[in-house]
């Protein structure tokens, strides 16, 4: 059974996560300065989440041109933010596919730290992680 029971639930959980990331005083600013637009194309449940170059989080379709697109499942998202799925392993097992200039993808990685730190609590608060 998928971690996220519905697209709405996924938007609720991951939406909160990304909003927290964008509000981070250091990483939020760095993200906006990078001028990168990311689109997560998620399956099981199906959905799209956008992080715009203005620091907005859009859950659902948007008429934007993504700098980087990531294709992955809802479960992979969940494990990735719990740090239970590393990027090399995700790539090895074809659980994440990335499209976009590699230097920009690499540039993103250090900006994700606040999201890793925040996700367990957010997941617990939404009842998808016990403990």
């Amino acid at each position, binding site marked *: 059974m998928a971690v996220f029971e519905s697209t709405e639930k996924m938007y609720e959980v991951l939406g909160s996560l990304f909003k927290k990331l964008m509000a981070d005083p250091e990483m939020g600013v760095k993200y906006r300065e990078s001028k990168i637009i990311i689109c997560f194309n998620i399956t099981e449940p199906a959905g799209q989440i956008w992080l715009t170059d203005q620091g907005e989080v859009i859950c659902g379709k948007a008429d934007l041109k993504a700098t980087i697109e990531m294709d992955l499942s809802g479960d992979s998202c969940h494990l990735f933010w719990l740090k239970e799925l590393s990027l090399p*392993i995700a*790539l090895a097992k074809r659980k994440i596919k990335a499209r976009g200039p*590699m*230097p920009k993808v*690499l540039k993103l*990685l*250090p900006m994700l730290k606040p999201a890793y730190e925040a996700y367990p609590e957010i997941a617990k608060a939404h009842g998808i992680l016990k403990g």
Partner: protein
Amino acid sequence: MSYTELNMDLTREQKTMKEETHRFSKEVLRPASLELDKLHDPEDVIKSPLFWDTMKKGYELGYHTVFIPDTWGGLGLDPLEVHIVLEELGWGSADFAIGLGVACFPAFFASMVPNERLIEDIIKPFGRNTDASIIGCWGITEPEHGTDTLVPGTPEFSDPKIRGQVSARLDGDEWVIEGQKSAWVSNGTISTHSLVYLNIDPSMGMKGGGICIVPHNLPGVRKGRPLDKMGQRALNQGEIFFDKVRVPKDYMLVDQESYEAMLDVTLATANAGMGAIFTGVARAAYEEALNYSKTRIQGGKPLFEHQLIKHKLFNMFMKVEAARALSRSAIVYNLNNTPPLTRYSIASKVFCTNTAFEVASDAVQIFGGIGVSKEYPVEKFFRDARAAMIEDGANDSLMITGAHSL
């Protein structure tokens, strides 16, 4: 710069980048590599102030960071720009283009899995380095293994009878590294850090590998003599020995769970880079031959006016343009897509190095007797290109690996 840019979408910044890199390549890399090529002993190359001045100039301009994001002090180039820069560097000197390109391997791969320690110890210092005092190398080739290490996705890769000669064993918070990398490690004897491809679980064959950064100031690291070889003589290559070297646990970037995928990414990146560099070598040989053919008089007229020479030159021109088209497409696709389509990088490497060899050979032929002398650079291009048909994977074997995914 004598080729017409067929990409009409290049920005002003990209055009400037191309011109600046070409100028550096023409004024610094080409003269230095020709001068260093004359030295009989490769040990003298790395003792030469000219070698180090050239490396330092490359570092000052950031050419050692073409694959590093600007977050870490790299040039932060997009994939098309990576191709443009590598072709221009290759035009001037395949030797220095490869040396500068591979220097970033430890920091580049660390930036894919950036933990705090790697950021502070490896990535940031490399990005900030401007005096060539931090030099990386790609430690994969071994005395008993060459291209057979580069076969991800094939049945041989999982054959337990075929395994690497450098091993890693976890002991507490450290990895213990033991074994030898062979004399074809680029930057081998001048490097300060290796990105070592090694064996963790022999029962899995080559698939049981890992990728680890080994700083060379750790006890137990020893280097051999620089390799004396036919081409690319300004590219230092040499053995590295690891005698129970204890490396912090965090420096193991990838273990056996994802080794095959990361090797695939490595091969896709390195082969795509070689395609771009040797497009530059092919172009250099073609331009030399074209220019010479317009000034050298034979049979009462310039060589260029002879129909056979014209025909040969146009053949060379077509090959160079085809090499650029393929190598650009491969690098742009594979540096924009993860996982990559490695067969396109292999096709680029094989096609462009073969092209460089054929075009350089034709250039020597057009020059005639003087072409085999040291008076003109075409004989060096020929030797450099020949070496590249084996370097980074022998072309014949790479083609079999590429064919496996067709």
